């Protein structure tokens, strides 16, 4: 009853007959709606052009007018064995992004080469890209055999040349099939015109493609897509939602979130209109509640406690393809999307640009142009969680956004973790040129009776951080200390009014706050602010940006941060006076405020 569904993409150089192969498959398997073939034949008669099977697919007016496929088309056909979705991808270089879009959703590829024209630029480029995208099964169709008199030698020559090319990129095609899509040779029925060929037909090959092996036994990877609490619908469940990329979860499992490293357990698996579930496996778009109320963010990757951990890093080497209208350059901010995570991304170094058509590489290029494939080093501000392509494909893939558009895609090859190297360099450079006024820090300390300090209150939302921060400002002010409390909304609509991209807003807020703290503490002040749910990386970045001055971190309410990154934990229910006293005492202990007057 339940039939398997399988996705195939057809790729190859422009005009080599991809849409014709597709049209033939549809027609010869009886998958066309009644009358469709006749309708297209009639249309061809009306417009005085010869009938082509490709017209069954090239549905857009421009496509029929120009006789080329512009965009991918999904077609559906079935065999005895299973149902297919076939993505017919355009072969023209201009539409490369459409070709990759089609291929990125496929489990196997049919690569079409024109027997008369032989191997062309995009025969190779497409071969290279489908392997990079992660398609493991490729069958090569040598088409238009009718134009070369069904000559075995022509076929064998293409077969050996193209096999050699594929071998260089570690792709081993499953089969080479000589066909004529126009005449119907070796599509569904064996060809009488090529008795020298005894292999499978196209349709047999299609049925022989293996289903992607099940991913449920692999280490657990669930990228957190969102966290729901529909209080308005009288529902108190706090549900973490995400699609399981690999592995299996079950109620009671101990789990870890990355990069925050927070640990908890699975309390329940949630679903609508099903029996109560206790497990969920790879492929499921699931949801679950946790045994403890920890704060996790969309974009974190959840694993089992005993699973091999993902990489957590802000620097990595990747293989990318670029389809953006503008080239990818250094010193420009891009956005990275990897599973459900997003981060600000920069191109740090181009190792080489590969010509996918002849596999030569250029190590001297200063930018990555449209349709280039490149090996390069990338950096994010904050570390993100990912896997290497050899370990876990699905969590190693990312796209790059430039000016609202997906402009490139890639796979991570290597983790080049080096902590906060580039941030360190930035601070070093900044301090080198820091122009000092004529008043030294020591002078200010003596005059103000306290040292400067950057104080950050963090913790969950609505635990009273702001109240305590403001009370502390008041208490210090009353003691004649120079204290200043900064409300977050003041910068959101002011200093940060230029940040339009919601996904980079938080990271950019942290960066600007750090730079601002450097200035405020330089002026000798005790600079106080609050951050909701800061993680260790945020605090690390603030600490570094505020250097050479110092930071004090206070957590209010339940604490998820390590001892090394916080100085004080305040109970959520602690009264304001008690809380400010504790902070005040800490400032004394740390000799920020001096107990004696000089």
């Amino acid at each position: 009853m339940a039939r398997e569904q399988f996705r195939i993409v057809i790729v190859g150089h422009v005009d080599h007959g991809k849409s014709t192969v597709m049209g033939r498959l549809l027609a010869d398997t009886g998958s066309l709606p009644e009358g469709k073939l006749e309708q297209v034949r009639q249309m061809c008669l009306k417009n005085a052009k010869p009938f082509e099977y490709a017209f069954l697919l090239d549905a857009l007016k421009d496509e029929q007018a120009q006789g080329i496929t512009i965009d991918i088309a999904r077609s559906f056909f079935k065999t005895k064995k299973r149902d297919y979705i076939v993505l017919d991808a355009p072969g023209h270089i201009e539409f490369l992004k459409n070709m990759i879009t089609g291929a990125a959703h496929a489990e196997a590829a049919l690569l079409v080469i024109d027997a008369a024209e032989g191997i062309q630029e995009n025969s190779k480029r497409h071969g290279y890209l489908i392997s990079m995208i992660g398609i493991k099964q490729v069958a090569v169709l040598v088409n238009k055999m009718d134009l070369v008199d069904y000559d075995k030698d022509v076929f064998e020559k293409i077969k050996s040349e193209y096999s050699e090319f594929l071998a260089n990129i570690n792709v081993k095609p499953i089969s080479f099939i000589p066909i004529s899509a126009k005449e119907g040779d070796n599509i569904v029925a064996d060809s009488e015109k090529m008795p020298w060929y005894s292999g499978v037909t196209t349709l047999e090959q299609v049925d022989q493609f293996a289903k992607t092996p099940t991913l449920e036994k692999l280490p657990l990877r669930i990228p957190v897509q969102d966290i729901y609490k529909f209080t308005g619908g009288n529902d108190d469940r706090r549900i973490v939602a995400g699609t399981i990329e690999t592995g299996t979860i079950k109620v009671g499992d101990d789990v870890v979130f990355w990069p925050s490293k927070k640990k908890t357990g699975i309390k329940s698996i949630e679903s609508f209109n099903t029996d109560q579930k206790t497990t969920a496996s790879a492929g499921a778009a699931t949801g679950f509640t946790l045994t403890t109320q920890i704060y996790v963010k969309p974009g974190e990757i959840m694993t089992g406690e005993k699973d091999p951990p993902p990489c957590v890093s802000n620097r990595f080497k990747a293989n990318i393809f670029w389809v953006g209208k503008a080239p990818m350059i250094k010193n420009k901010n891009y956005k990275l999307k990897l599973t459900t995570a997003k981060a600000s991304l920069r191109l740090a170094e181009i190792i080489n640009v590969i010509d996918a058509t002849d596999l030569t590489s250029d190590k001297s290029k200063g930018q990555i142009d449209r349709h280039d494939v490149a090996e390069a080093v990338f950096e994010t501000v904050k570390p993100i969680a990912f896997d290497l392509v050899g370990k876990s494909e699905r969590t190693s893939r990312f796209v790059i956004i430039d000016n609202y558009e997906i402009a490139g895609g890639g796979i991570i090859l290597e983790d080049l973790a080096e902590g906060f190297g580039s941030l360190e360099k930035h601070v070093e450079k900044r301090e080198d040129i820091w122009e000092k006024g004529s008043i030294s820090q020591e002078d200010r300390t003596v005059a103000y009776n306290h040292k400067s300090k950057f104080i950050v209150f963090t913790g969950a939302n609505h635990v009273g951080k702001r109240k305590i921060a403001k009370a502390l400002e008041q208490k210090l002010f009353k003691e004649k200390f120079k204290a200043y409390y900064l409300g977050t909304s003041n910068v959101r609509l002011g200093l940060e009014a230029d940040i339009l991209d919601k996904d980079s807003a938080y990271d950019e807020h942290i960066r600007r706050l750090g730079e601002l703290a450097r200035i405020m503490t330089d002026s000798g002040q005790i600079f106080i602010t609050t951050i909701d749910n800061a993680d260790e990386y945020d605090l690390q970045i603030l600490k570094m940006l505020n250097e050479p001055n110092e930071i004090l971190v206070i957590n209010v309410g339940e604490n998820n941060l390590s001892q090394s990154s916080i100085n004080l934990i305040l109970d959520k229910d602690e009264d304001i006076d008690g809380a400010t006293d504790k902070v005040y005492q800490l400032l004394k202990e740390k000799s920020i405020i001096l107990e004696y007057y000089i």
Partner: protein
Amino acid sequence: MDHLDILEAKSVYILREAYREFKSLCMLWSVGKDSTVLLWLARKAFFGHVPIPLVHIDTHYKIPEMIQYRDRLALDWGLNMIYGENSEAIRNKQTFPDGNVDRISCCRNLKSEALKHTLSGEWPRYRMDHKEKRYHLDNNREPYTGVIVGVRADEEGSRSKERYFSPRDKENEWDVGDQPPEFWDQYKTDFAPGTHVRVHPLLDWTELNIWEYIEREKIPIVPLYFDRGEGKRYRSLGCYPCTNPVESEATTVKEIIEELRSGKFANIAERAGRAQDKEDGGGLETLRREGYM
């Protein structure tokens, strides 16, 4: 996971992605089988809730049972139900049934134009008041920047070219030749001010899959899809002047599935009963480029 589980998981992922990314999001609900399955998938994605307003474009030529069914489900499921319409075209009789315009122009007036201005907030929107059980003028005039639509790729040519997340410009127009790339599960969720994105979670579903899923989940469906003793039923629902029932004695979802799988409709296109499709050489492309669903 069987094929329905796989389709469901992908659609749920897309719905959650849309909900996460778009501040001002709505879902179009024609009350036909596809958008009703879509609504059901939203309940799957959000664990029984539908945190997204549902927008219905009332052409005033929908079969009356469709409107009754819409309002009953809206009340039963606590939906944030909104409708819009082209009241001017209806008042001035600029419709095909009035005999003043052709079918394509009628679709353009009652559907595309109504949709465009309802989404932008320029024309009035009416919202279901769950206490009074009737519609009131909606004060929210904010444009919707994300619009979830239940189109399927197997319906007709131009729909087979759609993306899961497909941008529309200020004029609602669709640039078919230059669509955004979608690599793996990454979609276009960033958009320039003034543009909006159509989200298509059902792109990979076939008509048969829709019915198989209705059967499996026991989704309540408008009764017009079943033969009620006249030997006829609707296979695709639209406005009554342009939608014809098909000859069929299927009275249950099971029987419909049988018809589609191996019976009389196994090889007949679903929209064969929709007259407007035949008046344009590009299928629905002309209408769809302008914003038709």
